[in-house]
């Protein structure tokens, strides 16, 4: 229980590390002699010297309850009520509130104070969690005195198999500070259980995934895109296929949160890449109830189901970024979601012309799903800088690359039907006389990413569910 403040008299909140507070130390001594004075000190119980009643507020509980934003703050109480307050050193205001003893001979007439320790970054949320009402609706889960909160999260089934950051009130409040949206706003219904998911639940799972608060607009945008009926998140979760959601971020948001589109862009090591993708998966797991072995029926799955998220390299002004290609205005941030299996490396260190490289890439792309199938999923082609340079130097832009690959991915049906090439898998015999496209016209998404060295690109196969094009597609949404 904190010590009560006087019903009548003056209260000053100060900290030793504040130059203005040190400057007015003689004034505080003078006020102490003139009448009842209480000084609440935020950082040093021995400061100020020469004052009778100094309350240690290193835990900042008083500062929090008094809503102190800067120090020194002088408050006058009468009859148990605050009747006046001034912030910083202002001779006229201090004299008005405290009388002539606060005149501060020799001091400047005015000097601003310093920020209160109680409003330093990250502190206020901790104080709300500790002393105030966090206003969170999600139920509290107590953790035993000797229990490890990380282990408690594992035991409750909240983890994807890796440790999660325990969702404490202060962390959730900080996360909610990353968005203007209200905590109780429902973002959508999360499959498979079609459970309503509020912004607060998104924040909790973002905390657990390891996100920073500034990622929240991106996480919310990713989730909203994932809930687009055309993305068929429920089906993607339930499938026995490998696929899971791949998140590709375009626009200023990617740079703002420090996403990686360069060296090892599809790999580990970048917090935003890693945790934004993971947050989506944790929301599906925890809010939607999509658990492996439950509704997630993947035969093998793929490591990208922990997280699979990267940004496109938009550094070349000649390149039309994926989001713009898919209808988002230039300069806007956007998320594209694709039903993705794992990364298949593509090596070509011999091609020197765009024509050679397009034919070569087509050979790699034929392998998506099965070399003899044309309805086993679309694909994302991640063009590395060195491969892209071959196209660029040959004068090919995105549209030309897409068109040329589309043409190069046509094959005679007779090579693909059941039994052809001694392989049972394949297309129906009725396709034998047709020329068959590997992908539909918009079925190949090309994106630029990767480090500067290496004539390697990446092929990310899609999901057979995409073959019903009017029901299931990759989606691109602007991030609000």
């Amino acid at each position, binding site marked *: 229980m904190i010590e009560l403040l006087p019903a009548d008299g003056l209260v000053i909140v100060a900290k030793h590390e504040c130059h203005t507070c040190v400057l007015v130390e003689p004034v505080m001594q003078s006020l102490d002699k003139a009448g009842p004075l209480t000084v609440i000190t935020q950082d040093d119980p021995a400061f100020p010297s020469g004052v009778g009643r100094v309350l240690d507020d290193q835990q900042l509980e008083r500062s929090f309850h008094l809503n102190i934003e800067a120090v020194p703050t002088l408050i006058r109480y009468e009859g148990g009520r605050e009747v006046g307050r001034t912030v910083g050193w202002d001779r006229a205001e201090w004299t008005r509130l405290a009388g002539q003893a606060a005149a501060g001979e020799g001091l400047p007439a005015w000097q601003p104070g310093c920020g209160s320790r109680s409003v330093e970054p990250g502190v206020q949320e901790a104080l709300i969690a500790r002393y105030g009402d966090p206003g*969170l609706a*999600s*139920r509290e889960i107590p*953790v*035993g005195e000797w229990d490890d909160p990380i282990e408690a999260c594992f035991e409750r089934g*909240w983890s994807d198999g890796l440790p999660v950051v*325990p969702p404490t009130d202060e962390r959730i409040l900080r996360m909610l500070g990353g968005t203007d949206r209200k905590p109780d706003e429902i973002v959508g219904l999360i499959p498979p259980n079609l*459970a309503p998911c509020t912004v607060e639940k998104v924040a909790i799972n973002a905390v657990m995934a390891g996100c920073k608060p500034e990622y929240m607009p991106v996480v919310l945008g990713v989730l909203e895109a994932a809930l687009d009926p055309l993305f068929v998140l429920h089906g993607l979760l339930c499938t026995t296929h490998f696929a899971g959601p791949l998140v590709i971020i375009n626009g200023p948001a990617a740079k703002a949160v420090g996403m990686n589109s360069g060296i090892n862009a599809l790999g580990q090591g970048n917090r935003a890449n890693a945790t934004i993708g993971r947050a989506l998966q944790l929301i599906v797991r925890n809010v939607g*109830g999509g658990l492996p072995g439950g509704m997630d029926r993947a035969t093998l799955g793929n490591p990208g189901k922990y997280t699979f998220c990267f940004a496109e390299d938009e550094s070349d002004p000649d390149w039309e970024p994926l989001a713009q290609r898919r209808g988002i205005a230039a300069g806007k941030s956007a998320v594209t979601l694709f039903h993705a299996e794992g990364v298949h490396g593509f090596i070509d260190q011999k091609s020197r012309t765009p024509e050679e490289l397009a034919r070569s890439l087509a050979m790699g792309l034929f392998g998506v799903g099965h070399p003899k199938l044309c309805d086993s999923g679309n694909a994302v082609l991640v063009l590395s800088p060195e491969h892209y340079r071959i196209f660029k130097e040959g004068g090919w832009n995105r549209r030309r690359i897409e068109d040329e690959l589309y043409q190069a991915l046509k094959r005679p049906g007779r090579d693909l039907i059941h039994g052809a090439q001694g392989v049972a898998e394949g297309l129906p015999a009725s396709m034998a006389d047709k020329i068959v496209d590997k992908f539909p016209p918009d079925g190949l998404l090309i994106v630029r990413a990767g480090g500067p060295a290496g004539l390697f690109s990446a092929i990310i196969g899609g999901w057979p569910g995409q073959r019903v094009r009017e029901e299931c597609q990759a989606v691109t949404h602007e991030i609000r």
Partner: protein
Amino acid sequence: MNYSSKLRDPTAETSPTRRARLAPPPSLDGKVVALMDIGKSGGAVFLDRLEGHFKAAGVATKRYRKPTNTKVAPASVLQTIAAEAQLAVIALSD
């Protein structure tokens, strides 16, 4: 128990915060029952009697013992039980 901290539930809150106990199996046919002696005096007497009853009923049992009753069972003991048995009875006290 004193709770030193609290977390917020990340789920849709459709299940109780306390996990439900596993339901007992409908039958002991084909099951192996682990009989765990934590090392307290009298525990072995109880387990001997129980083992006899199981044997009479045609239920297979295996005996396990903690190295000391003053510490929790080592992971190797728990892993062995999990690998070799489907149910466990623990003789808890004197």
